Structure formats: structure tokens, C-alpha cells
């Protein structure tokens, strides 16, 4: 039985810890410096995007077909948030590392781990503060959205929220990696090097391995930047969301394992191996979740509405055998234009990729390039990668009539010619000034009750 004079440490309020962590980040220079750097970068990207969108809109003003191709998601949101992504990749690690690195450097960690909180609680509080810092960092980008609306621009709520969620997951992933790096290293500088090695390494993976066959293609999928792609395309990929969350929790758990200085190194290594194994398994499981939802207003990731309804009604199994190598541009086209959309709409579809080797030097293989469609035992083949040829083929195999296009369901497009020159004043003048003011206010000492101040002289 425990001694009665052992203190009860399990019911400590979480709020003071959360406030301390958030204040720790806000009181540092890293967050404010990042915000000040972010203002012109995000602002100029937004300005350029609006200008280019305006030029495209001017030529599309009297042509409905051209106007329907003008989506604010591609034209304004993705470029603006692309600048946000760059600054988060390069600068956010410094903000996140501060949540732990400073305490390790100064030795304050020795006090922190003696507080009546469990180690996971300490990391959760730090992760919450990092998430708070990400929200603060979002101010320039969100202000761009507000300016876009003020200029008369259009925003589709779902695709905008989806994009924000993608960036949130990416930011939390960077934050979790930074916390882990801070937990395993002795100084904030070393932690920054480790984190940047991962984030910039992701770019290198993207540049060098994407589109390569075999193992290289699989390795390139580990790039952090891959996290954002579907969200930028207006897709809510549940597997990706779950995988990202598993990775975030995994890195946070690793940070927890390495935080306490009193745990022997061997125990940390053994537990880390277990954590990596469990996280890896969860990420692999998440990768099996193929459900993706097209949240775009223009339904770019789906077939036309009439086809969607007709295809959703097909209950028979469709087996598609593709005689193409994965890196073949025709396969890339086929996947984007047809296969991905079929996977989203058909209740029972199987896609088999037969030619897994490089497509170079396959001139002697006559079947190479063919795609075989087998619907309930009826088979047809084509080399086309266009939905305009493939959908009629599938309807023929399913013995259903071609659906009649529904008028009025086409995406109208949102052309906008706006003078964005004034937004530069906001991003290069007013917003940085407001941020500097907020920084100054955050550094001001609070008022202290007179009785407290007189404590020493009483």
C-alpha cells in the first residue's frame, strides 16, 4: 500500500500546461518571424494567382466553354496555399521544435518531467500547442481567402475545407516529426537539421523518384509532399487521412518514448521498434482503404452526372486487365481519366496491372497497350485511354443503354477579372504591421496584483 504522504498526481488540471505550452511558442521569435516571412510569400503568390486568373477570365468572358474551365481551386487556392506549404515546410519545424527543444537545451526538461503529468500528456500538450501555432500561421493564407471573397471571387466550401484539412494534416505531420527530432537530439539546432533533412528529403524523393518504376515508385510515395496532392486535386482520400493520422500519432508516440531522461537507452530503442512496427502496420492498413470522395464543385474527379448514375447502378463485377507498365504515360492517362473514377463509382471493380516491367523495349509484345474489360463474363478490349470510348464499351458489356446527358448540370466556371494591386498593400504593409503589433503585445508583462507585489515587503 502506498504511503499516505505520497501526493496525488493523477488529477492535475491540463489547462495550465496547455496555456504554458502555447505561451512558450507565442513568446518565442520563431512563430512571429515565420509569420512575417509568410506575409510577402503568400501575398505575392495570391497576387500572381489572381492576376493570372483575371487574364484567363478576360479571354473567357464571352465563351462558356472556356469559362467552365476556370475553377478558383486550381486558379487561386492551390497556388496561394502552395506558398503556405513552402513556408510551412521550411520554417514551421523551427516553431514546432521550440515546443520541446528549448526545454531540453536549458535543462528545464528536468523540471517538466517531474510535474504531475504523464509523459504522453506532456507531448499531447506540446502537440496541441504546435497545432495552435499552425492555426496562427494560417492567418496570411486565410486573409487571402477573405480578400478573394471581397474581390468578388467564389469559394466552394467543401473543396476549400478539404484543402485546409490537407494542409492541417501536413502541418501536424511536420510538427510531429519536429517534436520527435527534438526529443532524440540534445539541441534545437540538431533537431532542426534532422527535421529539415526529412522535409527537404521529401522534395528530393519527389523530384528524383516519382514516375520511376518498381521500388523507386514505392519509395517516392513515402514523400511527405504526397500527402497534399489528392487534397489539391479536390479529393478526400480516407486512406490517406487515416495513414497521415497514424503517422502523426506514431511520431508523437516516439517523441513520448524518448522524452524522459530517466529511461535507459536500450528500453527506448526496444519500445521505439515496437512503435515503428505498429505505426507501419497501421499506415499499411490505411493504404488499403481505397475510398476517395470527389469534393470538387466541377466534379473533375468524376464522370458526368448521367454516367455516374448509370455506372453506380451496375451491380455486376467488372474486371479490368491493363497491359501497360505503371510508368507508361498511357497508363497514367488511363488511371486519371478512367480507372480512378471507375473505382470511386462502381461498387464492384477489380483492376489488374499485367505489365509490371518497364515499357521500354516492349515493341515485340503485341498485347502491350491493350486494356481488357470483363463484365460478368462478357469481354472487350481497347487501347483507348479516353472515357468517351471506354464508357460506351462498358455500357455495351453491361447491356444497358447509353445515359442521356442532363442539361444544366455542367459546371459554369467562375471567371473573375479583379484588380489585385491593393492586396499587396495588405500583405506587404498592413498585415506585417498587425503581426508586429501582436508580437509586441505578446511580450508585454501582465499586471500583477498589488498584494502579490508586496509579498516580499510585508
Amino acid at each position, binding site marked *: 500500500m502506498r504511503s499516505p504522504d505520497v501526493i496525488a498526481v493523477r488529477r492535475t488540471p491540463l489547462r495550465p500546461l496547455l496555456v504554458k505550452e502555447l505561451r*512558450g511558442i507565442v513568446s518565442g521569435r520563431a512563430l512571429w518571424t515565420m509569420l512575417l516571412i509568410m506575409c510577402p510569400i503568400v501575398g505575392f503568390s495570391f497576387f500572381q494567382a489572381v492576376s493570372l486568373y483575371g487574364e484567363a477570365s478576360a479571354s473567357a468572358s464571352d465563351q462558356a466553354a472556356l469559362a467552365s474551365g476556370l475553377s478558383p481551386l486550381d486558379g487561386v487556392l492551390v497556388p496561394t496555399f502552395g506558398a503556405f506549404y513552402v513556408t510551412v515546410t521550411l520554417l514551421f519545424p523551427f516553431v514546432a521544435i521550440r515546443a520541446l527543444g528549448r526545454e531540453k537545451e536549458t535543462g528545464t526538461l528536468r523540471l517538466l518531467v517531474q510535474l504531475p503529468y504523464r509523459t504522453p500528456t506532456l507531448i499531447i500538450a506540446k502537440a496541441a500547442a504546435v497545432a495552435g501555432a499552425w492555426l496562427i500561421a494560417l492567418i496570411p493564407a486565410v486573409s487571402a481567402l477573405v480578400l478573394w471573397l471581397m474581390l468578388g471571387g467564389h469559394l466552394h466550401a467543401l473543396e476549400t475545407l478539404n484543402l485546409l484539412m490537407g494542409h492541417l494534416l501536413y502541418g501536424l505531420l511536420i510538427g510531429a516529426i519536429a517534436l520527435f527530432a527534438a526529443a532524440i537530439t540534445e539541441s534545437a539546432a540538431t533537431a532542426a537539421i534532422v527535421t529539415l533533412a526529412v522535409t527537404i528529403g521529401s522534395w528530393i524523393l519527389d523530384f528524383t523518384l516519382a514516375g520511376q518504376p518498381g521500388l523507386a515508385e514505392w519509395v517516392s510515395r513515402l514523400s511527405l509532399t504526397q500527402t497534399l496532392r489528392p487534397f489539391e486535386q479536390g479529393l478526400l482520400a480516407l486512406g490517406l487521412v487515416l495513414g497521415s493520422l497514424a503517422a502523426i500519432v506514431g511520431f508523437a508516440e516516439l517523441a513520448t518514448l524518448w522524452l524522459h*531522461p530517466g*529511461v*535507459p537507452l536500450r528500453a527506448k530503442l526496444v519500445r521505439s521498434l515496437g512503435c515503428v512496427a505498429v505505426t507501419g502496420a497501421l499506415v499499411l492498413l490505411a493504404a488499403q482503404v481505397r475510398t476517395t470522395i470527389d469534393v470538387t464543385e466541377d466534379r473533375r474527379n468524376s464522370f458526368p452526372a448521367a454516367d455516374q448514375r448509370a455506372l453506380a447502378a451496375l451491380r455486376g463485377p467488372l474486371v479490368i486487365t491493363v497491359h501497360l507498365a505503371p510508368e507508361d504515360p498511357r497508363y497514367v492517362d488511363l488511371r486519371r481519366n478512367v480507372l480512378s473514377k471507375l473505382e470511386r463509382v462502381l461498387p464492384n471493380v477489380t483492376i489488374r496491372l499485367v505489365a509490371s516491367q518497364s515499357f521500354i523495349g516492349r515493341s515485340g509484345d503485341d498485347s502491350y497497350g491493350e486494356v481488357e474489360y470483363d463484365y460478368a463474363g462478357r469481354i472487350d478490349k481497347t487501347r483507348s485511354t479516353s472515357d468517351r470510348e471506354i464508357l460506351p464499351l462498358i455500357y455495351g458489356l453491361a447491356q444497358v443503354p447509353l445515359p442521356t446527358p442532363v442539361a444544366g448540370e455542367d459546371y459554369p466556371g467562375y471567371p473573375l477579372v479583379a484588380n489585385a494591386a491593393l492586396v499587396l498593400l495588405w500583405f506587404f504593409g498592413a498585415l506585417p504591421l498587425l503581426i508586429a503589433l501582436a508580437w509586441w503585445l505578446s511580450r508585454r*508583462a501582465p499586471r500583477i496584483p498589488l498584494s502579490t507585489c508586496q509579498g516580499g515587503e510585508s
Partner: protein
Amino acid sequence: MSVTAAMANSVVERAPPLLRVLGLAKHYGEQHALAEISFDVHAGEVLGLIGPNGAGKTTLLEALAGLIPVEAGELVWRDTPTPNAERRDIMFYLPDGLRPWDDELVMRVLTFFATVHGRTAREVTETIGSVGLAPVLRKRVHALSKGYARRLMLALALLTPQPLLLMDEPFDGFDLRQTRDVMGLIRRVAAAGRTLVLAIHQLADAERVCDRFVLLADGAVRGAGTLDELRAQTKLMPASLEDIFLALT
């Protein structure tokens, strides 16, 4: 029987010990930082861990607090073995030379500690008064003088509720008058029922404030007991703590 074990067994026969340290060992590669350290801590006493720089005092305190892993040994708190993870329930360790959350205001650091440990505003005010921190409450921790940084750490320790306080070099950075004040404060804390283990390298300071002593040199215990017990052990009558330490190390 080893010297340290013999010392552990020759504990003052007055009350069951609050804490028993048994065979604590810590290596850094080939170097023995702590070699089979054993001693007892009694409730309400001020125990001094005495030794020169490099004797292993800080390592011992951090090992006791569970902040560094050890190769061997255990802590028994009121007859119950206490693993690393539970040490913070019974003791609070105040490191030497630390400026906690150095970019924060002194008042905020105090408020944080007080809120976490459920202290009232009145208790905070009393603590601030007892260590004389009032003039620097609106200063940032990194801007404090060495003496005020020490007072802040002392205030944090006073705000914690653990029955056992471990303090590393509590008088470093204080002038003569301040040292006397802090000694008085430590005595009052002990009188109020808390137990203190102080790592001190200034023997004169230790002799004035501690009830009992554990003499350390090269990571090993060279003697333990009250001043009179140590005098009897060394057969030096009369002798100061300094004389005894020199005789035993």
C-alpha cells in the same frame, strides 16, 4: 560487508527511515559515477550530501529523482520499493544553475507551478515573500541575476507538495546574508514537516544547516551520520565537518 552497507545498517536508531537508498550504481563507460551508494533519509531532517566537485552529488540526486537511468540499486519509500516512474510522487528535485522557461516572466512561471500543484493565490504570495522575489515578478527569467534565479528555483520548490525535496547546491549564488536567510527558510520548511536532501560542496554551510551528512568522494559513500557520529567514527574530538571529511576521504 562493504563500507556503505555497514553505514546503511548503522543508521541512527530513532525512527524507521522515510527513504532507503540501497546499492545505487551508475557507470559512464568505464567510469564509476556512483559505486553502490546506500544511505537512509529520515522524516523531517535536513540531510547533506557532502563532497567536492565531481564527487557524484548531482548524479546521485538525479538518480534518486529518476532523471537518469542507473545500472543497479533501488529506493525504498516507507518500506515500499519505488520505481523511477513513481519518484515524482514522493520527491521533487531542484537542479543547480537552472533558469526554467527563461523567456517567460517570473510571475508566469510561478503561477504555472502554483496552478499545477493546486496552490492558492495566498500561498503564492507567501512564497514570493518568503524568498524575496517581489521586485522581479515582471522580469523575464533570463534577465534575472544569479541570486534572483536561485530564489525563483527555491520558490518553485516551495510550491511543490512532495514530502521530500532534493536540492542541488541551494546556497550557490547567494551572498553571506542571503545564505543565512535561505538556511533559515530551509530550517522552517523542515520544521513544517518536509524532508530535505541538500547537495553542498561548502562544508561550512553544510555544517550550519544539516542534521546529518552523507560524505561522498569519487562516487562512493565515505561516511554517514550526524556530526557527533562522524566524530566518533573518525575518533576526532572535537572536529569540524571539514576535518572529518579530510580524514575520511
